[in-house]
């Protein structure tokens, strides 16, 4: 759409929820799909990790002629490698998944990237409607199919929500033929993660939900409703300072900022 805008999609190795097998990660696939929509052939797709990983071919099979791999050994921190890659290349939009399906899966990567690059982060986007030289119109995904349209100045990082366009089918042949640009990186072992002991999660028993609804419509609502916090207020007409103050107060109150 905008050949002069550089778009990068970051991809990771996913994990199938039923089989535990490596796969193209659900949200990362959507990040590539959105990237292809924005940049077409000019999209750069980057993975930090093992260039021999077969799953990368599944991303490449979405029609990428090449894929960039920042080579890293197992157990290394992807963040420094990605930061140095992004600072060295002039990038306008970085697309990631919301959280990885593997490893820590903390969902922190886009935040940490944004923090280190000093770029805005747009969380959980459903679509990027248009991109101009300075800014982009982005649709945020809200619960229950709602969308919010925001204008974001470039450059920025966006994490792609499950509401975004589903990743296209991957084709085996082009996936095999894609070139991998493997870049050697100074790798930093993730010391903290090294100390952790990882065990399989046990599903916690679910609390029974007693639905008292009388009609089908009520039951439908009860089944689909997201818990809505009772507090909070909507501020539309206040000045930015007032809004910022309100957020800051809330963060203090919730002990996020001390």
């Amino acid at each position, binding site marked *: 759409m905008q050949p002069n805008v550089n778009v990068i999609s970051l991809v990771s190795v996913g994990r199938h929820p039923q089989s535990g097998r490596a796969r193209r990660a659900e949200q990362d696939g959507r990040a590539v799909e959105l990237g292809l929509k924005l940049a077409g052939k000019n999209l750069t797709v980057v993975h930090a990790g093992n260039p021999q990983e077969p799953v990368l071919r599944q991303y490449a099979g979405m029609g990428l002629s090449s894929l960039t791999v920042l080579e890293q050994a197992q157990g290394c921190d992807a963040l420094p490698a990605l930061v140095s890659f992004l600072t060295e290349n002039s990038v306008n939009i970085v697309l990631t998944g919301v959280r990885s399906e593997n490893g820590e899966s903390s969902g922190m990567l886009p935040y940490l990237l944004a923090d280190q690059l000093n770029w805005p982060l747009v969380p959980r986007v459903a679509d990027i409607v248009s991109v101009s030289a300075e800014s982009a119109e982005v649709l945020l995904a809200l619960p229950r199919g709602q969308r919010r349209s925001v204008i974001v100045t470039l450059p920025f990082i966006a994490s792609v929500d499950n509401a975004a366009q589903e990743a*296209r*089918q*991957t084709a*085996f*042949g082009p996936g095999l*033929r894609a070139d991998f640009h493997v870049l050697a990186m100074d790798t930093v072992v993730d010391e903290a993660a090294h100390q952790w002991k990882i065990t399989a999660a046990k599903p916690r028993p679910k609390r029974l939900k007693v639905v008292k609804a009388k009609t089908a419509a009520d039951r439908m609502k009860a089944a689909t409703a997201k818990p809505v916090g009772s507090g909070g207020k909507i501020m539309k007409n206040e000045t930015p300072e007032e809004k910022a103050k309100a957020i800051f107060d809330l963060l203090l109150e919730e002990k996020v900022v001390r």
Partner: protein
Amino acid sequence: MMLDWLVPTLISVLLVLAGIGAVRRMNMWRAGQAEKVDMLAGLLAMPKRYLHDLHHVVDRDKYISRTHVATGGGFVLAMVLVVFVHLFGVDSKILAWALLAALVMMFCGALFVYKRRINPPSRLSKGPWMRLPKSLLTFSITFFVLTLPAAGVLPEGFGGWLLTLVLSVLILMSLSEMLFGMTWGGPMKHAFAGALHLAFHRRPERFGGGRSTGLKPVDFGDGVSVKEVLGVAKPTDFKWNQLLGFDACVQCGRCEAVCPAFAAGQPLNPKKLIQDMVVGFAGGTDENYAGSPYPGIDLGHAKGAPNQIITDGLIHPDTLWSCTTCRACVEECPMMIEHVDAIVDMRRFLTLEKGSTPNKGAQVLENIIATDNPNGYAPASRTHWAADQNLPVMKDVKQADVLFWVSDGAFDMRSQRILRAFVKLMKAANVDVAILGDEELDSGDVARRLGDDATFQSLAKRNLATLSTYQFNKIVTTDPHAFHCLKNEYGDFGSDALQNVEVLHHTTFLNRLVKDGLLQLEPFKGGKVTYHDPCYLGRYNGEYEAPRELLASLGIDVAEMERSKFRSRCCGGGGGAPITDIPGERRIADMRMEDVVSTGASMVAVGCQQCTAMLEGVVEPRPVVKDIAEILAGQLIEETH
């Protein structure tokens, strides 16, 4: 006589033109991919293949088989003799009389061709094909008159130059059709290409009553370099003898008449598909095609060229995805053309290169890749259905007489009823049986029919690796699709896991148990029963009798449907068709259920979980659908201790 030179000249000119045309045509075929063929053996075997195998298929329609023998045989004989008598001027009364006899035979045949063409059924192509009987008649009459003097019936020079001139015009007309048209794309092309197609057929095992139904594997190369294209993108990506095969089509439309997708109004007509392949490798459009179109797609817009991507303008992908791979067309084709191979070859391109498997296709393939079953269930839940069955698992017992291949029916509640019924029967007969449990993977059938041969081959190899670690004499499955893969397609991957192992469908196996007196069954007292032959059991594997014998052992006199055994109509469930779900005017399963209803049966017996699912999907009221294992289990006399 002044015009003595005219007839021989005409004949030789047309022979030369035919020769040029033949070389030109052969070069079109040679543009295809290399394929090893034993040329000499093929050529030597050709007459027998024609007289025996091809005739065997044609003979299902006695009218046309006799007509064809008279016309075709008469023509070939006459043409050879014409060369001797009229071109080389061999002066022999015997030859001349032989020629007269051949022409009479041909004339009689041509009369019947003519008769069939007076009010032709819709499956036949019209256009130039309507002219053919007239050309045949002209040929036989002309040369008959021309030969009379040589036979001594008429004096030399009878009729003078006027008759010679008239005859020459007629010769030109008929020989143009018979010789020139043969190699330049006229209706007679089928004789030339057909003969060579029989000689160089890609599946020579089919001749002499053999069966060859397994798809050929995609060559993924040596693992170092990746091939330029996987599957068939352009006509020249077919093997050369596949192109030759397409050219052999006589446009008889027998394939069209039996195709379930065509009958359902989906955009597929196997005859048109083969003609489009010809348009593709010869270049041009489908304007001159004079048969039924693909339902819902107008003629005249399809364009093709040898190096043009087929799905870009020649064939709509929906046409390819409508096929259920039921093989009814292949079974019925007198020229032994392989429609299913061609369709799957082109699907391979769409899936492996374009990533455009329609509808649920992409998701199913992704599930198979990630979980080894099409619905993405947890692999660790594969054996849940057998929690109460007390079945030994190979991992524990290492060997058994019978390995029960459960198939993905393990995940489906309806199919589980079939599995349990079969287990009950095996237990009653004290069969030494074990299952693979969670080690079993999807057979790869669906992935392969959807064109994803990479996934199929991966599954096949992993399944074979598992199988090779255990000892068993037989492998039995209730799923004809898995049966077909195990029996006919796993052999291509260089494993000896199935060597000396009998691969059996459960009806075959149960029939043996019944015959050996291992099952005590009480006669079936319900109403009328009919039997639906699953494509992958019947046409793919030739098992028509065991299910019928089993039903007979219960005292059931099967009320056969009009389309049964090798003519059975597909349930609509094969080839991934329910996944790609190309819309038509009707559903194939509904049509099959109408076949069932028309027998007056209150129950239809099947031998396939997929058929069960498809037929049970037809809205009620309708006859009951039951797998043969379920029917038998219901009649089992259980010993009480």
